[in-house]
């Protein structure tokens, strides 16, 4: 601390942080106090994950952490060292493609400004992974930690239901597409 002040703070030494992001190694240097959100955006330049509140309420920063959806604003990047992160940029199989879920968001216009959308997609992806036939109340519950100010959620619920239907059709024998 600077002499004579209780409020000051001395930046800590930067650390090299290495994690798996969207199947690739992501490495960067940051202070311990840098959140995973800021590290993804500012250091790795994966700007699809968004900052909304930085106190864990809005869900815009949701990413998959070892497969489970979490708030990246509530994890320090240094804590993610060695862990596996999926962001919106990693939802499709190949760069430039769209996943079925993403495509359904487009088809139903499940977004307007697009700001909450990446977090919403991640939450929906996690839901469909654990429950391939969610009903509307399960869908609403799964996205209830993600705030959207544009849509009123209706078309998002439609998109997730549509994606579940499509994914189920695809996985049914004889329905390979």
């Amino acid at each position, binding site marked *: 601390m*600077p002499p004579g002040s209780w409020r000051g703070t001395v930046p800590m030494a930067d650390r090299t942080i290495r994690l798996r992001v969207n199947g690739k190694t992501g490495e960067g240097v940051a202070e311990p106090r840098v959140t995973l959100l800021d590290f993804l955006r500012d250091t790795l330049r994966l700007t699809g994950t968004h900052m909304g509140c930085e106190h864990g309420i809005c869900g815009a920063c949701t990413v998959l952490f070892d497969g489970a959806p979490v708030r990246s604003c509530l994890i320090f990047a240094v804590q993610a060292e060695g862990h596996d992160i999926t962001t919106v940029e990693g939802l499709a199989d190949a760069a430039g493609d769209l996943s079925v879920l993403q495509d359904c968001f*487009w088809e139903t216009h499940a977004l307007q*400004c697009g700001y909450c959308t990446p977090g919403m997609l991640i939450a929906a992806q996690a839901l469909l992974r654990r429950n391939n036939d969610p009903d509307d109340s399960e869908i609403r519950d799964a996205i209830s930690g993600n705030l959207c100010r544009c849509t*009123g959620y209706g078309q*998002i619920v439609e998109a997730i239901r549509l994606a579940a239907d499509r994914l189920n059709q695809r996985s049914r024998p004889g329905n390979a597409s």
Partner: protein
Amino acid sequence: MTSADHPYRYVGRQRRTKEDRRFIAGQGRFVADISLPDMRHVAPVASPHASARILSIDADAALALDGVHAVLTGAQLQTGIEPIQHGVPAPDIRWYPLAHEAVCYAGEWVAAVVADSRHIAEDAAELVDVRYAETPAVVDPEVAFDATDALVHPAHGSNVLFHRKFVWGAVDDDFAAADHSLSFRVKWGRNSTVPIETFGVVAQWQPGDGLLDVWASIQMPKYSDQIAESLRLAGNRIRVHQDVDVGGSYGVKRGLKHAILAGYLARELGFPIRLIEDRLDNMSGGDAHGPDRIFDMDVAFNDDGTITSMKIRALDDCGAYPGRAPLQLGKPVGSIVGPYRIGSVAYEAISVCTNKTAQVAVRGFGQAPTNFAIETAVDKVARFLDLDRIELRRRNFIRAEDFPYTIPSGTAYDSGDYHTVQQKVADLIDYQGLITRRDAIRDRGGLAGIGIASCLEPGGGNAAFEPLFNPSNDTTTWMESCTVKVDRLGDVTVLICTSSAGQGHQTLAATVVGEVLHIDPAEIRVVHSDSLSSLPGNSPVASRMAIMLGGAAQRAAEAIRDRLIAIAAHNLGSPGSALVYADKSVHVADDPSTGLDWQALVRICHRQYHLMPPGMEPGLQASHTLQVPNGGTMPAEDGRVQMYPCFSFEAHIPLIEIDRGTGKVRIHDYAIAHDCGTVISPAIVKGMLLGGIAHGIGAALYEKFEYDSAGQHLTGTFMDYLLPSAHEIPEIKMAEHCTPSPLTALGQKGAGEAGYMGSAAAIASAVNDALLPLGLEANTLPVKLGMLSEMLKDHI
């Protein structure tokens, strides 16, 4: 493809939007995504006091911190800039991005730290030592109105920013002649749209060009002009990049102070400046609160249910600085009697200053609170007369055959069929069945209520409230522009002159242009030109873009089409009247084999001047700047004015239940019928409507900026200011109706504020219907859990 039923190829069809794809791939381009070399970061130092004099600011400790470049104070800043302009005359209220001499609300910015990172900027902001002498805060707007010595801005001489009483028609006579009258008070709580993206700006001074580049999360008319004026720069020395994606706005993204501050710092310090509000900055210091209004209402009516006259007194708490906030009392003048045939009306509009965060334009610009007050009056009349609330509305609605219909305040409504839309929502939700369900819940001891709200959404925005509220302002146009150009390869690019915040303007423009030129909108590129390369525009406010951008795009595309016909006429030796444009070619009407196709026509325009009609300019491009339909006149002496041109209509019916043991509200069912004329993009209109309803449910039940008696803001985080989640918003049933506007090319009206116009009123109506059996009334929004639990504590 087209038919008598559906005359359009692309308009009104279910189609994918142009914008969504980049967002779902995580490839939006938001302001916080911009990273420039050597960019520095700003953190504001905020006042902890609602009202105080600034005695001193000591930034030495902050400046000593490694990585800190500057600490700017209000005293330094105000010498280099002009104050931010207000929408009403208040020359002695000097508003700067950083407070100077005094702070007027808790959270007001008093200094700005510039550092290598936001982290370091925040470290340094803590070290800026500001000494204050607290002064008494003005918190209650009614006290503020009467105050003579407790003033937010002593130089202004009072706390009143605007006060005028309009009387249109024989109000006193009508009240005297009426069988009954009722008086009541309702309050609309301080809430806002609170987008998930906070406001942000990046500014870069280009010394070689003498040009300030601005990237901002902006939705605001005349933004670049106002930055230029404040920074004392020529208008052509500011370039606002309007291709920045805006992460939600709904009116509030108006960061003028942010851009002035960032622009000033960029020029002074010589490196790019990034100022992205964090959530705490945003909630308390972002100057983005919404209307906060007390309505005192009197309504006169007869035994048969006819409402004959109304008196509305609206006292709005605008917060610390006026800006454009008082004008939000002006816009409702253009629909001051709602959808009803009310023959006379008095409207007393009062805007006062208090020591609270400043207010800004919020979705509907004051219309939703006014609709809530009017709908409450209608409900109360029905209750008084023991008439069904829908029936009472039917008796008072303007009839379909009465349009265009001029209301007492001078605005003509373009078209509508309120009876049919009301019937559609009643049918959709099975109104009689709903009453049965409500009564069944009541029979088992529950508190159930049906809400009714039937509200207008004025659209098209002509800013007539500016001259109405400010005698020195003679603005009578609020134009919007569009350019269509066809390149040498024959591909079409459309230039629009504003940024977008999710309203789908690229889809809108491409759909309209594609419709005219018979080109798949998916193949049309739409570009947001920067403010220097833009033609005049006034941004996507006021539910205006379908009308204004849609109209401008259509005219520009028609000009292209007409040119192609003229070129074909010249080359085919036929009169233009004998030719038709179809499927990207022009051919002789009765001989489709004789004509010129698209590539041939484009080739003529771009290469073969010798084949063009004499005098026609080469290339293939057209622009149109559209004047607002029905606009262009100044208000009359008594304030009568044509406010907006087009009037959309929506009828809501929710069924709610209040848990009598806890006060918790559940929305069981919700239906809406909606008429915005011709729908251009159904998915977009649907989204607007659903989002607007959700926003209104927030305003009715959850969202409020709360202050304590000392002016401390108590809801500065998302833990205290409650945005509804997918749990709180029910599935919504929708019915569309189309009464085309006679004023627009396709019959379209506005939809950007749809849903929000009536959902808060509808929920309030339902809450009061539910409380009726207990003899209780909730007249203040939001009706929060705490309020209901308190009311119900003796009614277990």
